[in-house]
């Protein structure tokens, strides 16, 4: 049943057809127990919408779908999540603000968490993606919610997440982190100063209940990696451009296809971010994940292990003056 729904939902995403997608989701919802059952709503979000969306990501990764097509599909999914969420009654367990970290443009996971929290009885405010950090902090001061749930999909968002956690704790608001940029044990979340970590949307409502009632200001991060992460963050765009130039030079003109050069444009800044994030949370696996992901993207666009190594070497050359970053790249990319 679910597999069928997921397939049908994916078909609707493939044609970017919101009406068809909503109809599939509604059918799945009535099969799962109807809109009156909050658990059923979360079921449909997880097993139909997110499952189909995962396949959308795979199709983009494999180079079968363009970025624009992925965006169109995601916009349809977001609309369906919002529509299903609107049918849930307002919760009364306390007020949770749901937002994405700075530079995090993946709004769908946050939207799903928003609805899952509502299904769990919380009153939520969804603030969406890429909200300027100042406006988010302002909102926390203005409304004084019981918690902030912050979504981090890309490694680069961990840097912004840290600043938002500082602002939130300053305002006395405890923070829950979730998203694919975090590890399953919640170590990264803890190192960033969050009070809680939710491994998935379904568990978020229960984790919020375990958060403290108040938060004290976050202790400053003083480890050497934090300084290097800040340094990389400041020079992010310049570094990405320089790395790009080095890769071009190393590979030579005409050696590779246009498609992967284009992919490289989007990928290099994310890899730079991943180095900074790995240093910030003292977790080299952040870089491992970024390397594996970059490898997949390039592989599907006609590049191999040699080109991936070139990206790592170029990055290491640019960052040679930062000992932590250099060591990190030596051990986790060049090998």
């Amino acid at each position, binding site marked *: 049943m679910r597999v069928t729904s997921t397939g049908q939902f994916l078909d609707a995403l493939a044609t*970017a*057809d*919101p*009406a068809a997608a909503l109809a599939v989701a509604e059918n799945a919802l009535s099969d799962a127990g109807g809109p009156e059952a909050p658990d059923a709503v979360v079921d449909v979000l997880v097993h139909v919408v997110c499952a189909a969306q995962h396949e959308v990501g795979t199709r983009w990764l494999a180079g079968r779908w*363009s*970025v*624009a097509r992925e*965006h*169109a599909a*995601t*916009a*349809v999914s*977001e*609309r369906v999540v919002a529509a299903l969420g609107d049918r849930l009654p307002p919760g009364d367990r306390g007020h949770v603000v749901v937002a994405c970290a700075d530079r995090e*443009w993946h709004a769908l996971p946050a939207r799903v968490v928003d609805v899952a929290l509502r299904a769990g009885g919380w009153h939520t405010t969804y603030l969406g993606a*890429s909200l*300027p*950090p*100042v*406006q988010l902090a*302002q909102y*926390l*001061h*203005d*409304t*004084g919610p019981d918690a902030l749930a912050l979504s981090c999909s890309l490694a680069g968002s961990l840097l912004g997440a840290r600043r938002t956690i500082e602002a939130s*704790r*300053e*305002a*006395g*608001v405890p923070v829950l982190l979730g998203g694919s940029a975090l590890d399953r044990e919640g170590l990264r979340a803890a190192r960033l100063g969050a009070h809680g970590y939710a491994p998935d949307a379904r568990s978020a409502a229960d984790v919020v209940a375990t958060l*403290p*009632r*108040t938060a*004290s*200001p976050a202790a400053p991060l003083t480890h050497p990696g934090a300084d290097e992460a800040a340094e990389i963050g400041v020079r*992010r*765009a310049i570094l990405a*451009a320089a790395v790009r130039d080095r890769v071009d030079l190393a590979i030579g003109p005409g050696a590779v296809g246009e498609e992967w050069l284009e992919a490289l444009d989007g990928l290099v800044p994310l890899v730079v971010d991943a180095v900074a994030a790995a240093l910030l949370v003292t977790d080299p696996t952040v870089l491992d994940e970024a390397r594996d992901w970059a490898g997949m993207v390039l592989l599907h666009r006609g590049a191999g292990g040699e080109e991936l190594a070139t990206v790592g070497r170029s990055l290491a050359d640019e960052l040679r003056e930062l000992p932590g970053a250099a060591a990190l790249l030596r051990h986790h990319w060049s090998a």
Partner: protein
Amino acid sequence: MSRPVLPDPRSDVTRPVPRPAAERLADHLTRADRTRLLSEAARGLFGSLHVERTVFRLLALAVPGLADWAQVVVRRGRSLECTAASVDGIALDAVTRAPTAPASGLARVLRTGRTQLVHVADAADNESAATLAAFVPDPTLRAGVAALRPADLLALPLTGRSTTFGALVLARQAGRGFDQDDITLCEELARLGAGAIDSARLYAERTHVADVLSRSLRPPELPERPRTRVAARLRTALDHIDVGGDFYDVHGPDGDWTFVVGDVCGKGVEAAVLTGKARQAVRTAALVDRSPDRVLALTDAALSAEVECSDEDRFITMLVGRVRPDGESLRVDIATAGHPQPYIVRSDGGVEAVPVEGIVAGLGEDTGRPTAHVTLEPLDTLFCYTDGMTEARGSDGFFGVDRLTRLLPLYGGAPPEALVEAVDHAVAQHRDGRPHDDIALFAVHRERG
């Protein structure tokens, strides 16, 4: 600054507290501990601008560091808002009526602004019940402190702007009573807490005023219309202010509705006030006649008077559209007052600029503004923007129309949210954190049948 705690003949119970030196909590507090506690309090209290959050913070600083139980009371009108914390770390909220008898308990602290120390006996007699009730009016919260009996209660005033607006009530189990040094320390904490809570109260009052006044200046909710989808995004130049000089609005019945996208020169609150007037003028004009050129002429006349009165030379660019469903498609009439031309993104990715021209509004120089008539077939999108988008600066100059027109074809047939999001994202990446002017993006999309 310490203050003698004198027995008050009118209070229910006030009596010197027994102080077995070895067991007092405060004896474990060295001078360094006290300094650290106060610096933590100062650090922890200054950041929050929300009353409830600040109250929670104060409670967390008091328990268990200074007391076994604590209550913060804040007066709001005729009510008292009481919040308490015990060593379990749980805070409870309760609202209760302000006490009427000013002679004792909380009412006395609120009236006099002076610290009061009382002992509550172990016995569940009427006297100790009355004492507790005088300081802890809410029965649920009272149950928490009653368990500590015999206990010493220290009630400290929360004073700001020359008014005692609340109290911090600390309780310690008897045997760990408050000596003079403790009282001095607790009074210092109460002063810090009072400053923070009072700032938050002031902030809340001002925020409320600003919020009500600016409600009409914020972007409107976009209405759902049959088979027609509108998506929009507004990015204000000043991150901390969510109103600015760019605006959009949508109004009218499903069968014949009007949209406007506009840009008042200038930014911030002053510009936003003028956008409010412009939006209202367009709404009124559209009630008279929805033809975009007529809407613009009337709006221009109305705003010219406004603009002349203002200190600066302000003019307004605007794009007005009239939208009517026509079978499968949408007919859109468009006129402009000096606004950047919109684009139509066809379902197959074809992109067409809509050639409309007309003089800016606000100068009172209406020379006529020709109307363009376009048709949106199913899955076509009309995309409008303000020049804050094309003029967003990156490392290699403006974002520009070229980048826009390279992006638009990729979103042929896509939902308008995806198109708006893609442009917003591309501009943000181009800027890479550089400041920008207000940016409004607005898209009308005809859905499939």
